[in-house]
Structure formats: structure tokens, C-alpha cells
């Protein structure tokens, strides 16, 4: 195995073009290699020392998260918690404190797990990723990025350099909740993220809804027309649409029918949390702890 410790983006892109696999925290790559399950790639390039790749900056009225920004940073960054709370909810639930210290948003996005906790929040927030190669840079929405479990539309010479969060509508907020059996080192059984926009009178203008671990990729719920309805009615509609559109599998953690039922429950709770936040209610990150969802302390 060859190993390169990249000190610049150019060096990293050259290595990726030559066939190296990027590694940041290694929380997916190295864990997968333990016990010889999925051997490490022949060639690795470490991108965790590239200056500036781990910073959060303002970008076109929203935020630009460098690819090596950690989950720990996302879960506590004041601007993310304030304007993109659903993403902070997701990062705050990943693994354990140790996982969140070394696990990065770029790694999470490019690992493309349908159970990733940041995926559904990124979908409802309208996020894109910046993919760079020696040939140039392009921007792809997260909806167009994930194509199958563990598969993205990025080509093998492209490196994810940032996740872009656009400015959010007035009177809106987001939230992510998941069903979990324990409070740490857990993978979502199912999860749901929403962004709720309210009108001036407290009725709902729109609800974006995306689901975790109920389809081959993060699933965006479609045709959820709740304009003008109450928050309670919007939550009901979200529950029904989520359970209807989910296509879950049965595995060791849950049956398909249990997932189909519970993803609706999560969707309804996510709508209630996001609407509460949009109305100015203080609901702390992560919603799972604030609402007491999941395993008790």
C-alpha cells in the first residue's frame, strides 16, 4: 500500500488522479478494513492536513463547509445550529464523541450510505457538493450525487472539497430525528429530516421531507402539498407520505414493515420539531435528546 500525506489540494488531486483513495478521519474506510472484511485500497492519500479544507465560511448568503469539517464542529457551530439545525441534529447523533472528532462531512457524503445521518438533512436544506479534479471543479446537488448504496455519481478522479448550504427561506427551520436502539455507536434504524416554512400567521407554507435507511439512497418524499394547512395537519400528511413512499428492506435491525411504520412516526416528529423551531421555539440539538426519542439515559 502506498500512502501520501497531502499538504495541498493540488497534491491531493494529483494523487487521486493517479488512482489514490482519499482518507480523512478513516472512520468508514479503516473500520471496514478491520478483520479483513474490505481491505484498504492499494493507494491512499490523507487529506486531513490540507490547509483551509476544514473551515466553515459564508458563501452566497449560506455556508460552505470544507470537506474535512468534522461532525463535532457541525454539531456545535453557532451558524449551523442557528440556520441549518437539521444538519447539526444529524452530526450530533453520529457514532460517539471519538467518531465525531475524526469523522468528516466530506467522508460521510462520499461514503453514500442510505443510513447516513447527515444525508436527509442535506437533501431538505438543498445542499450541493463541490467535486474537484485536476481538470476543474463542478457542483452537484446531493440528490444527483447518491445513486445506489455506497455509490455516487462522482468519477474516480474527483475529490469532494466542500458541501454547500444555500441561504434558507424566511420563517423556516429544519430538524432531523431518527429511531435508535441505543444512544451511541448507533446507525439509524430509520430517520427523517424536514425543512418547514411557515407563513406570517403560523400556518404551513411548505414542507420538504427526506428519509433515512428506507431506500437504496436517501429518499426525498415527493408530492407533499401542505400549503395553508396547520402544523398538525402537515405532520399527519408527512407521516402518511413517508410510510407510503418508503421502500425499506428487512435486516438484523428491523423488519420492512416496522421500518415503514416508524419512518412515518419520525417524519411527523421532525415536522413538529422543525415547525417549532421556525416559530421561534428553542429546541436544542439534537432533537432526539430534546424530545427524548430513543434509548433512555
Amino acid at each position, binding site marked *: 500500500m502506498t500512502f501520501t*500525506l497531502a499538504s495541498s489540494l493540488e497534491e491531493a488531486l494529483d494523487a487521486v488522479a493517479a488512482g489514490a483513495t482519499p482518507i480523512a478521519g478513516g472512520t468508514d474506510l479503516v*473500520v471496514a478494513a478491520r478483520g479483513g472484511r474490505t481491505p484498504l485500497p492499494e493507494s491512499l492519500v490523507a487529506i486531513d492536513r490540507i490547509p483551509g479544507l476544514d473551515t466553515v465560511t459564508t458563501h452566497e448568503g449560506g455556508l460552505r463547509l470544507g470537506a474535512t469539517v468534522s461532525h463535532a464542529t457541525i454539531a456545535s457551530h453557532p451558524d449551523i445550529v442557528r440556520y441549518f439545525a437539521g444538519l447539526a441534529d444529524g452530526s450530533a447523533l453520529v457514532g460517539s464523541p471519538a467518531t465525531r472528532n475524526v469523522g468528516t462531512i466530506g467522508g460521510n457524503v462520499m461514503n453514500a450510505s442510505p443510513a447516513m445521518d447527515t444525508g436527509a438533512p442535506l437533501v431538505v436544506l438543498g445542499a450541493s457538493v463541490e467535486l474537484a479534479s485536476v481538470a476543474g471543479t463542478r457542483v452537484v446537488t446531493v440528490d444527483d450525487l447518491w445513486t445506489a448504496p455506497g455509490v455516487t455519481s462522482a468519477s474516480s478522479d474527483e475529490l469532494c472539497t466542500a458541501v454547500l448550504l444555500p441561504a434558507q427561506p424566511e420563517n423556516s427551520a429544519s430538524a432531523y430525528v431518527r429511531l435508535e436502539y441505543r444512544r451511541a455507536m448507533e446507525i439509524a434504524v430509520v430517520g427523517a429530516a424536514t425543512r418547514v416554512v411557515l407563513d406570517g400567521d403560523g400556518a404551513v407554507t411548505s414542507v420538504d421531507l427526506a428519509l433515512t435507511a428506507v431506500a437504496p439512497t436517501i429518499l426525498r418524499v415527493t408530492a407533499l402539498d401542505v400549503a395553508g394547512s396547520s402544523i398538525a395537519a402537515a405532520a399527519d400528511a408527512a407521516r402518511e407520505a413517508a410510510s407510503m413512499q418508503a421502500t425499506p428492506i428487512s435486516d438484523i435491525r428491523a423488519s420492512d414493515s416496522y421500518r415503514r411504520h416508524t419512518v412515518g412516526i419520525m417524519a411527523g416528529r421532525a415536522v413538529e420539531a422543525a415547525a417549532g423551531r421556525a416559530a421561534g421555539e428553542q429546541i436544542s440539538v439534537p432533537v432526539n435528546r430534546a424530545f427524548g426519542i430513543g434509548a433512555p439515559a
Partner: protein
Amino acid sequence: MTESYTLTVNEVAYSIVADAQRSLLSVIRGEVGLTGTKEGCDDSECGACMVLVDGRPVNSCSYLAVQAQGRAITTIEGLASGDALHVLQRNMLEEGGVQCGFCTPGMIMSAHALLDQNPDATEEDIRLGLAGNLCRCTGYAGIMKAVVRTAREGLSTDS
């Protein structure tokens, strides 16, 4: 492929020649020779292998040693000064937070990082801070008592 690099463990620099695939845990135990850090699950689940990298807790079983070059690594051996136990170690013993002892080094490293970052940690903060560390003996009550007591006394209290 074999890589040559320097690891700084407990403020001592070690010259390492090892396969690039080796985990930080494997190099700390096998090359540096410090065996206080334990291998539990070797799968990032149990926290027995917890060390600090630049002050932050990291599962060393699932972190490449070669990626830790140039960073400050702290293991359980780096806490005591001479024969005097660190306050967290002493409180673990006095509060019954140790039975078989296998999880203790990782538990202490997580607790150390938490209290270093948040000296006023509440009981809930401590539960969340130790959420990545499993113990199969104590039922956690003694461990919680030891860390809550350390939060009250202060991390830098003389033993």
C-alpha cells in the same frame, strides 16, 4: 508498503518503521511498547482503545498510525506523574469504578478529554462524553461517581 515516520506519544518522539496499514493501537502497543491502551472489539464500538490525538479522544483501533504523525498522542501512561496517580485514576479506584480494568484506560482518556474541554460538565454531559466507552463489569455507577467527583474537584487537583 513500509513507512518510516515519527510518532510523539506522551511528549516522547518515537521513530517508527511499520506497514502503512497498521492501526495507531497496533503501533502504540507493538512498536512504541505502551500496553496500557487496550484492544477490545477492534471495531470502533467499545472505546477500550481510546487515546487522545491533539487532545481529542480517538478510537486508536480504527485510526491509521501513519496519519497520527506530527500530532500529539496521549495514552493512559501519560497521565500519572511518576508513582503518583492522576486524580481520575485515583477517583476510579476510590469510587469502585474499576473491576477487571480492561475498559478503564479508555474510560479515563474519554473523561480526561471531556473535563479538559468542559470543566463544568454536568452528569448528563459526562454520560454523553463516555457514551462511546463500554464497561462489562461495573454497571457504570462507580465510573460515573468517579468522573462526577473529578469534575467537582478539578482535573488538575494534586493526587
